[in-house]
């Protein structure tokens, strides 16, 4: 598609499983954290990425930004192969990409350096990129704090003087400091009080409209995903199993895992067929994922071929992709 801002192609990230000895360690296997993942994010949209804890959402996002080097795979930003740039590009070129792609972290208690004032934290990208002359930093800092709903006097405070919601605003201000086009929001509200979650989500929506941003919104909380996303990708054990527009996905989930997730939402869904199919069993290990469809040990509709035949995303209706031998 032409209007793709980001395209991730065959992204793979394996972590070695080591057995530590006294003098050396031996690799005994691999965790297939992200296993051959392909999807695109369109300019100006919010793509939600959902899945249970440990399914590889964060790893996908970090591999995309090369915060952990992917094992293999490509990622394109506006047609540029950014993995290539991160691996072999000149320093200026890497910085140019970094400026455009930013990250908001899950836990604002861990993502701010406790010994740095807010001003130091938000201005750090200015020191790295030098995209503004120094005499304008103060004005820009004021602008940024206002943009995320903080006061100017907050600049000289330290993270421990703020609430979780305020810290997350600081994290957002830092990400916006370099005028990015694309923001990864990795569970930006899941560590916050329920009462401030909506505020932060609304702030993100407002910023998206004001600044023309594109989001990858990661969460295991389906109600916030439904609230903020245009399209949703569902991930299970390192694989994307379904992608569709948000209304389509919630109304017509095709993958049995998606369906199970949806029926597990705590809020009442009057029009949904509240089946009995709540997720059963443990999430299998990503070290030795089941062959065939990775969901088959927990799937009620599993066919014999589900156990052996791998299954890839395929079109199933209007811009709806699903990886299932026997869709609902």
């Amino acid at each position, binding site marked *: 598609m032409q209007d793709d801002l980001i395209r991730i192609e065959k992204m793979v990230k394996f972590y070695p499983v080591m057995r530590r000895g006294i*003098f050396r360690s031996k690799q005994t296997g691999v965790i297939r954290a992200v296993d051959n993942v392909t999807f695109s994010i369109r300019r100006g949209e919010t793509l939600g990425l959902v899945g249970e804890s440990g399914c590889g959402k964060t790893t996908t996002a970090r591999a995309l930004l090369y915060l952990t080097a992917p094992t293999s795979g490509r990622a394109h930003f506006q047609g540029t192969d950014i993995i290539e740039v991160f691996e072999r590009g000149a320093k200026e070129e890497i910085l140019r990409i970094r400026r455009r792609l930013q990250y908001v972290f899950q836990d604002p208690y861990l993502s701010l350096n406790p010994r740095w004032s807010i001003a130091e934290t938000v201005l750090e990208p200015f020191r790295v*990129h030098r995209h503004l002359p120094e005499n304008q930093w103060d004005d820009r800092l004021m602008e940024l704090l206002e943009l995320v709903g903080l006061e100017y006097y907050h600049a000289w405070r330290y993270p421990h003087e703020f609430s979780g919601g305020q810290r997350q605003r600081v994290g957002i201000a830092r990400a916006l400091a*370099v005028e990015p086009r694309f923001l990864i929001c990795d569970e930006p509200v899941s560590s916050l009080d329920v009462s401030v979650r909506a505020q932060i989500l609304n702030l993100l929506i407002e910023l998206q409209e004001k600044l023309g941003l594109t989001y990858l919104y990661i969460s295991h909380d389906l109600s916030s995903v439904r609230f903020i996303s245009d399209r949703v990708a569902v991930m299970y054990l390192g694989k994307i199993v379904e992608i569709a527009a948000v209304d389509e996905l919630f109304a017509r989930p095709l993958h049995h895992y998606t369906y199970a997730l949806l029926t597990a939402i705590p809020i009442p869904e009057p029009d949904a067929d509240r089946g009995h199919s709540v997720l059963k069993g443990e999430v299998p290990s990503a070290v030795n994922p089941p062959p065939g469809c990775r969901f088959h040990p927990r799937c009620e509709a599993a066919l014999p071929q589900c156990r052996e035949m791998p299954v890839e995303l395929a079109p199933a209706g209007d811009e709806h992709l699903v990886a299932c031998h026997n869709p609902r």
Partner: protein
Amino acid sequence: MGIVRFIIRRLIFMVVLVIGVSILIFFMINAIGNPIEILLAERPGISPEVIESVKQYYRLDRSLTEQYLSWLGNVLHLNFGNSIVYNQPVGSMLVTWGWETVKIQVLAILISLALAIFIGVTAATRQYSKIDFGVMSTALLGRSLPGFFLGILLILTFSYWLGIFPSYGAYSTRSPLMGSALLDSLWHMVLPVMMLTYFNTATLTLLIRSNMVDVLRMDFIMAARASGLSAGRVVYRHALKNAFIPALTYLAILFGLMLGTAPVTETVFTWPGLGFLYITAIQQLDYPVIMGENLIITLMLVIANLLTDIAYVFIDPRIRLE
């Protein structure tokens, strides 16, 4: 609370503590025995008149409380009394012998600090690599080795077999090395400093490495990388300071306890420092020397503590003095 008020309060507390410790030590020494008994045991033939005059000279005929108060009064005038064994003023002895101790200890602490930061950071940024394993095993071994054992190994290797460094003393008794007093002194310092450095570095490296590993896992490190900061600058700007602060306490302990580790090193290398003096003073119950040394040990510990607390305030914005 203002920092000045905090310091004043701590200073008052320090005075109380130092006096308390000195009372305790004084009465403990006397519970063990007194120098006259040792003198008698060594030379049984001494006449009672001589003993009486010695007792009077050192005021040992007074009550213990009187003896203590007169010691304290003199200390307030910076008079620490005379050594019973060396018959010299304790004050000037503490200075001359103390210099020998401080010389090797401070040098060892500075060297180990530089080494520990370099090695600790190298190991932490390569967690679970061969380098990391090597560093960890060497450091763990270093901490579990008894102090005198390493000293003896060093003497065996560098003095006995290789014959390149002296095994005892701080100065050559005959002609100094290459005719230079400074070179000669440094030459004698090599082995004791090596021994001290090894032990300091072992613990400091382990501390810095493990703190560093913890800090490097934090999301703000990731955030700095996402900002475009290079890996090296991330370590330097974000991780090192955060990792170093917990090690600061240990550094202060090293300074404060300088005299605590001195006896072993100085006995192994026959080094004319306060540690060596301390051991001989205890053997002879030379109480003015013991009391003087204890005063210094206590003062160094409390001062090191106070300085760490103050340093924390300047380094860590979250800490407020209470």
